[in-house]
């Protein structure tokens, strides 16, 4: 437990000094958001389209930053140093929490901007925030694991999105559907299926990752 916290803190410290991942993620989100906004123009999109756009922006922005945490360890040759002092599961969880924080920061910026610029009317903030909250676990869990995999491969950038997309697609599909419901109805029960699916996905992907991480990390 303590190791998880220490690794998490160390990554925050490092990130605080370089601001690489956070810059990449935020700039990507803002650029895509404005690109989408430009191209749609005055046309008012349906909630269905807006929900999909929101998740696409969220997905691709997170793809630009989530992998950084493992690639950095690999490129600066600190992976072995870390391996020497930490248990694999604490490494995975430490990095997972870091990515979780990164995603939350991204959403804190992205959600108000999206609502303001795209004129997206959320009827039930309860559903919307719950979707984001639970969805983050799945996104960060799967993203961190794929990041660990590609950090050991020779081409990294493009591969991350290619590998994550099929793995994270359940989050995307349920997330879009739940977000649409958040804009259409007020009752929490209406989005029950999606929220359950997101929750189950989060749990399963994190458990599977902890079990499999050992094989990625240890040569």
């Amino acid at each position, binding site marked *: 437990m303590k190791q998880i916290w220490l690794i998490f803190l160390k990554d925050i410290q490092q990130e605080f000094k370089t601001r690489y991942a956070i810059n990449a993620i935020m700039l990507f989100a803002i650029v895509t958001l404005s690109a989408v906004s430009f191209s749609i123009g005055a046309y008012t999109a349906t909630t269905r389209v807006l929900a999909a756009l929101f998740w696409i922006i969220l997905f691709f922005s997170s793809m630009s930053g989530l992998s950084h945490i493992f690639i950095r360890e690999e490129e600066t040759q600190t992976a072995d140093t870390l391996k020497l002092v930490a248990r694999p599961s604490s490494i995975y969880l430490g990095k997972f929490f870091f990515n979780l924080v990164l995603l939350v920061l991204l959403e804190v910026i992205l959600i108000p901007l999206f609502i303001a610029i795209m004129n997206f009317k959320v009827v039930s903030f309860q559903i919307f925030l719950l979707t984001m909250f639970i969805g983050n676990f799945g996104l960060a869990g799967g993203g961190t694991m794929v990041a660990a*995999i*590609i950090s050991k491969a020779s081409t990294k950038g493009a591969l991350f999105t290619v590998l994550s997309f099929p793995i994270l697609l*359940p989050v995307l599909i349920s997330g879009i559907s739940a977000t649409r419901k958040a804009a259409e109805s007020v009752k929490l029960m209406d989005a029950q299926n999606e929220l359950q699916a997101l929750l189950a996905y989060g749990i*399963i992907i994190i458990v599977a990752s902890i079990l499999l991480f050992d094989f990625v990390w240890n040569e």
Partner: protein
Amino acid sequence: MSKLWKIILYTGLALIIVGAFVWAPLEPKILKEYTRIFYFHVPVAWICVLFFLIAAYYSFQFLRTKDLLYDAYAKISNELGILFAILATVTGSIWAKVTWGSFWNWDPRETSIFILLLIYGAYFSLRSAVEQEDRRARLAAVYSLLAFVTVPFFVFVVPRIYFSLHPDPVINTQGKIHLELRQRVVFFSSLIFHTVLYLWLFQMRKTQVKLQMILRLYKENKMLEE
């Protein structure tokens, strides 16, 4: 595989063609004259799911034993899987054009096979991105298993969110299409014979890589001794 098996397989396949085109009647309500496609399209689609599961099994075996032979098995299983996924997609979308009017509709089955194709594609791009052999095997196996645990979501979640255009005669028994006995016989025997045919293919490829592996090990050991 023995001669007898070959004969059974060939006659079986011939009988299925005859059965599908002559013996079994057409389903009158929904499929109409496209009933025939059903006997061949469904087994192919089923096969690529089967190979996906086999690949996950061998990936697990590889992680357990670290024997590169299992990695080779997982790889050929995925190769055959991607081949049949492409076949199922192509035949399916031709069929979709004829019946539903467009090549692609994002119906749940189409979505699932598309995701399967994406996973297969990702698997091979991962393999090509790692040079060191046992690292490649490990990463590919982990990715296979990771993809495998997300499968239940595609099976249970996607159909709940998008409605289906696919006829559901086998899984959904109270459903819209009622299959006659003769149709059932042809369908299930076609399924079985296709499975046997493809597993045979898989078995041959397995033997091939195994022999290659033995030769390679021999040559490398000889080089080391010199």
